[in-house]
């Protein structure tokens, strides 16, 4: 029993990180109908902003604020203004290819300017365990899970209960009609990019103490979150959350009770099954296109 609780909570903690990153995929899909293939590297970069600030002797709280601010600027505003806006005019495919190039640029940039080696990242939570149903669960795992879910809850509340949130939803559903209704569509799209930047920064701060800060850290995360978004439903935030949590838990249980060697294949089997039997994802909405 204690093993199951341990695996479940560790899986949920990992899954919550996947969910944060996967939400970014869905947000950008809803606003620009494109896939950000640099999303994994977006999770990797904020940790290095923080480390750079720490190297300049900033205290941890200030370094985290600097990391968040730099992420909002670089991964939110600059990403939209310098890459998305100019490229989207040429269609979705050039933008997708551009994000692939951006992914390589970010990885190589960090490797050259900081280090190719992994660096330790300070933990935001105390070490130690608490007893849950007879299992010793790390405070870190629980904290990651709680913080990630709190962030998702706040985001949902913002989108559903505030005027700006509803305007963002309207923009995502139909930008032309939203414009006719007087909604500042451009600003709403910018907000989406800033929210994505904040989510990846949070994911980075939560996961880096465990995964370590490394230029290649985003590769696995980006892929897992992408799979989570597809499994859950690419066009629904709740789908991304469900997909992320499911993937984290399934991965851990598969490694423990099926095979450690084939753990990497299990999410892909899940992905194939979903594409075959429910192409819109577990919680996604089927989209129709006029030909």
């Amino acid at each position, binding site marked *: 029993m204690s093993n199951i609780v*341990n*695996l479940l909570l560790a*899986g949920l903690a990992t899954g919550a990180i996947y969910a944060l990153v996967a939400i970014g995929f869905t947000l950008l899909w809803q606003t620009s109908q494109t896939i950000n293939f640099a999303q994994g590297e977006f999770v990797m970069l904020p940790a290095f902003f923080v480390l750079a600030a720490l190297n300049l002797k900033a205290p941890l709280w200030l370094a985290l604020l600097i990391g968040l601010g730099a992420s909002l600027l670089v991964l939110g505003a600059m990403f939209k203004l310098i890459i998305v806006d100019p490229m989207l005019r040429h269609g979705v495919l050039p933008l997708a290819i551009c994000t692939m190039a951006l992914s390589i640029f970010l990885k190589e940039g960090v490797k050259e300017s900081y280090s*190719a080696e*992994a660096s330790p990242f300070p933990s935001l939570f105390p070490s130690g*365990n608490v007893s849950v149903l007879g299992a010793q669960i790390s405070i870190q795992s629980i904290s990651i899970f709680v913080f990630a879910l709190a962030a998702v809850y706040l985001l949902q509340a913002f989108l559903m209960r505030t005027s700006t949130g509803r305007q963002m939803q309207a923009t995502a559903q139909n930008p032309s009609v939203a414009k006719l209704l007087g909604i500042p569509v451009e600003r709403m799209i910018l907000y989406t990019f800033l929210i994505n930047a904040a989510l990846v920064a949070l994911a980075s701060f939560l996961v880096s103490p465990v995964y370590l800060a490394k*230029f290649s850290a985003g590769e696995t995360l980006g892929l897992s979150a992408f799979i989570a978004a597809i499994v859950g439903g690419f066009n629904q935030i709740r789908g991304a959350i469900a997909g992320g949590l499911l993937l984290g838990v399934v*991965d851990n249980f598969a490694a423990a009770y099926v095979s450690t060697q084939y*753990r990497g294949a299990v999410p892909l089997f899940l992905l194939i099954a979903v594409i075959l039997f429910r192409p819109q994802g577990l919680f996604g909405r089927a989209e129709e296109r006029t030909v």
Partner: protein
Amino acid sequence: MKSLAGALVISAALAVPAYAQTIKLIDVAELSGSGATVGTNFKNGADLAVAEINAKGGILGHKIEITHMDTQSNPGVARALVQKALDENPYALLGPGYSGSVKVTAPLVAQAGIAQVMGGEAAELTQMGIPTLFRTSFGQQSSMPKIAKYMAEDLKAKNVALLWVNNDFGKGGRDMVSKELQARGVKIVADLSTEAGQADFAADVVKVKNANPDAVFVYLNEEESARALKELRRQNVNVPLVGETTLLGQKVIELAGEAANGARGHVGLTVDAPIPALQEYGKKFQAKYNYIPDHNGIKGYLGVYMIKAATEKMGKLDPKGLPDALHGLTIKTSAEPGILLDLTIDKNGDLDRESFMGEVVNGKQVIKTVLPKLNP
């Protein structure tokens, strides 16, 4: 015009011998990817040795010129780079550090007939019958019996769990240590392979706990070792965690923090050993690069000094004669202080020298025992 042409001819005549007299070494190393710690340490160690030797006039009066190529920790890239390196006609090749990359590059180097002084530790590397391949550290066939003996006799372990990385390095170590443990009557109660670059070890550690071992043998690369140690401590695995060199390395201690305390095992090379030459080297390295070298930092350094000693034994620059000069060579610190520990290279390219048993105490590697050369 004539004087200009004359000057050009004279410059060219002078330039050719100067170029020819340079000893060209090429280091093919893991400078990025999962093995970045390995390759970067190896590179820095080699650079330090080259700078020292050049400052003292080079080898037989010839300066060394070293270049580095990045395999990205990918055996396919390593093979392509070694082919490219061989096209540049180097005097000898250094690296790679990953056993998988050594395995696919060694046959190419053997065809060229020059020496390859590498960092791989998989047992099979020097059993492939390749006469141009040389280690800079112990192979697993030398280190694993010492670890198995330690677990069986010192720790009195009856049941051992194995946690290893699924690549040539990890599989070689796992095969060798399980054979040695079983020969000593120790039962393998969990045999868990993990992936290179794996981030989450929760499930693996649950399996380790379920097996209820007396000790856990952890044989992973640097970053994965740190993550596994954190998870083992988090899940309150309190039995001895035993490894080989990497588990007690500086990078693992830095990344794992407190979780590294108590990790123990065999260490082939360490600047924490009670050997003045090694400690002095550690200080030199730290002064230049601002961090403490791990065993790979010593391997790169020793590799260059092995080439120097063999070349001086030949008394001439003969790249194709270098492998023969290295075989059977004993290098004493009294004759070549740069070799740090008395060293003998056997006919397969394996090494014999002193080694150590250590433990991580308060975030620092502490050497408990010095093990003598197998054939003093």
